[in-house]
């Protein structure tokens, strides 16, 4: 039986700008179960990174969580995210080159993090730091090295070690491999997956890459223009996508094989609307080939906990 770890209820993140209040995340509800890897996929500007930042309470002003609730282990946490931050929930950012302080050794940064959250002595913290490095496949003797001495892939391993050092229950990984080469990307993803499985840590994996998603996550949430478009088990969503946007996304992703040569790729016309120019009704309707009158006037609800689309409602 799966147990819920994190639940978002009607989360809304807004930005106040000259042209009015923009909703970067709009009425988002989803759950993350204990020990599972939930992938959030979407194009740039879909609101996926903002969702991650909202959970850990690190949205930069002028943005703010304006509505909704975040529950962690049956307790409401959005009013005091700093109590869980770092201990129960940690984060891995996109660019390993900039996420480590260049002026301090990696060991220093590990020890400091462990001491901030665990009741251990300095020596024990250091031992833990070395163990952590060993686990991510880095020679523990390099504990006194500075970040610049590591390559990009190695640095991302250090970042993972940092994120897991305090044995959190949830790790939010925001495009953790986008800055890396393909061959390194696969290693880093496997490592993250393996370590979290071993500890029963849940992961929210944020990415724009359907392939990465397919290979790593248990469930997938597809976001479009700040809203949840579709959510479900990875296998089901990918083999039988319900939302036209997910269908288009799948079809327009080129695959690695010889058969595809010469054929036209499927293309979704147009581009994702800017947040200050969202169409009424379903945000996807101007690009959707199956859109009808209702799609242009009223916003579709989540149908059977799977996809926010009027077509599904009509079918059932």
């Amino acid at each position, binding site marked *: 039986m799966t147990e819920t770890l994190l639940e978002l209820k009607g989360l809304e993140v807004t930005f106040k700008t000259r042209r009015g209040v923009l909703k970067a995340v709009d009425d988002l509800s989803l759950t993350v179960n204990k020990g599972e890897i939930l992938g959030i996929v979407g194009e740039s500007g879909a609101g996926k990174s903002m969702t991650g930042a909202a959970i850990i309470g690190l949205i930069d002003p002028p943005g703010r969580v304006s509505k909704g609730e975040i529950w962690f282990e049956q307790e409401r946490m959005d009013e005091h995210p700093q109590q869980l931050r770092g201990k129960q929930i940690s984060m891995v*950012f996109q660019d390993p080159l900039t996420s480590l302080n*260049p002026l301090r050794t990696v060991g220093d940064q590990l020890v400091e993090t462990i001491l901030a959250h665990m009741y251990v002595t300095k020596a024990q913290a250091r031992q833990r730091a070395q163990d952590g490095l060993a686990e991510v496949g880095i020679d523990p003797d390099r504990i006194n090295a500075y970040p*610049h001495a590591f390559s990009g892939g190695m640095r991302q391993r250090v970042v993972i070690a940092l994120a897991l050092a305090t044995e959190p229950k949830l790790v939010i990984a925001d495009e953790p491999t986008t800055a890396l080469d393909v061959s390194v990307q696969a290693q880093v993803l496997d490592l993250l997956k393996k370590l979290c499985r071993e500890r029963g840590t849940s992961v929210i994996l944020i990415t724009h890459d359907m392939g990465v998603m397919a290979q790593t996550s248990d469930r997938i949430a597809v976001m479009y223009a700040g809203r949840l478009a579709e959510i479900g088990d990875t296998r089901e969503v990918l083999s039988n996508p319900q939302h036209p946007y997910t269908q288009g996304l799948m079809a327009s992703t080129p695959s690695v094989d010889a058969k595809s040569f010469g054929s036209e790729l499927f293309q979704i016309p147009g581009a994702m609307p800017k947040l200050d120019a969202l169409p009424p009704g379903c945000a996807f309707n101007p690009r959707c080939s199956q859109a009808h009158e209702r799609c242009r006037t009223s916003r579709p609800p989540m149908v059977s906990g799977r996809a926010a689309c009027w077509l599904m409602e009509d079918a059932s």
Partner: protein
Amino acid sequence: MLLIILRRLGQSIFVLFLVAFISFMIFRYVGNPVDNLLGQEATTERREALIESLGLNDPLHVQYFDFVVRALQFDFGVSYRTGMPVAEMIVQRLPATIELALVSAVFAILLGVVAGVYTAINRRGFIANAILSSSLIGVSLPTFLIGVLLIWIFAVELKWLPSFGRGTAVDLGFWSTGFLTISGLKSLILPGIMLGLYQMTLIMRLTRAEMLEVLRQDYIKFAKARGLPDRTVYFGHALKNTLVPVITIAGLQLGSIVAFAIITETVFQWPGVGLMFINAVYFVDIPVMSAYLLLVGTLFVLINLIVDLLYLLIDPRLRDGQLRRAGS
């Protein structure tokens, strides 16, 4: 590491020679040393003799070499105006300038960094904004006006502090200090504030800007995401990274303090080398100008060198020769 130090040292020596060359050119070609020493009515024979004895007929590089050698022996010629050896004038007046500069530098750096960090961390706070707004007035207020204002309030109206001079100085033989007498210390306060205030505002604004820049970096976000307490994030991570560029600029500001001392010394009739220089500019006293340039140039090059070496100590990337200092 050693390589970088060597390279910096080489650069410094090159700059020193360049400064010496400019001083030499000024010394040799601006104005006419013969006219100035003998007056325009002197006979041709006396002129020829002087030209010969000064070596003015020698090839340029020989003259330059002589100039450098004499400068190394602390011989800068004789002042056109007072007839005294320039070196003697400098030795008499240098302690006054150095003590003044020291007091204002400490004042400027301590207060500047603290206020800068405070205003960066409490970006939206009322006090921080008040400090920031008044700092803009500080930057716009010419230093001489600050001096005049201070004199008016504290010396003329309130009569608390002296309006000019450095009070009673104690002569230690090689050094005359104002630190040891009450009147000496009292005399230091107003000029010290005047000289330090402008630098303080600059350092404060710079520290604030750098700190804000650092606080936007990913590693600060990541440190916060790891749940480190604010204190650790600000002082453990941000401050050190902020101080690296601040040190450079603050070091260069130390140089400015010596230059701005010219103004302070004029306003307060402070018997230092700055006052000597401004008089030299006014009366076109070339040997004094040239010697002052050489002196200040050496000082600045030294400060720069020290700043760069400090940089090496702080930044591990530089130590491993991975990155060059931005912009140089």
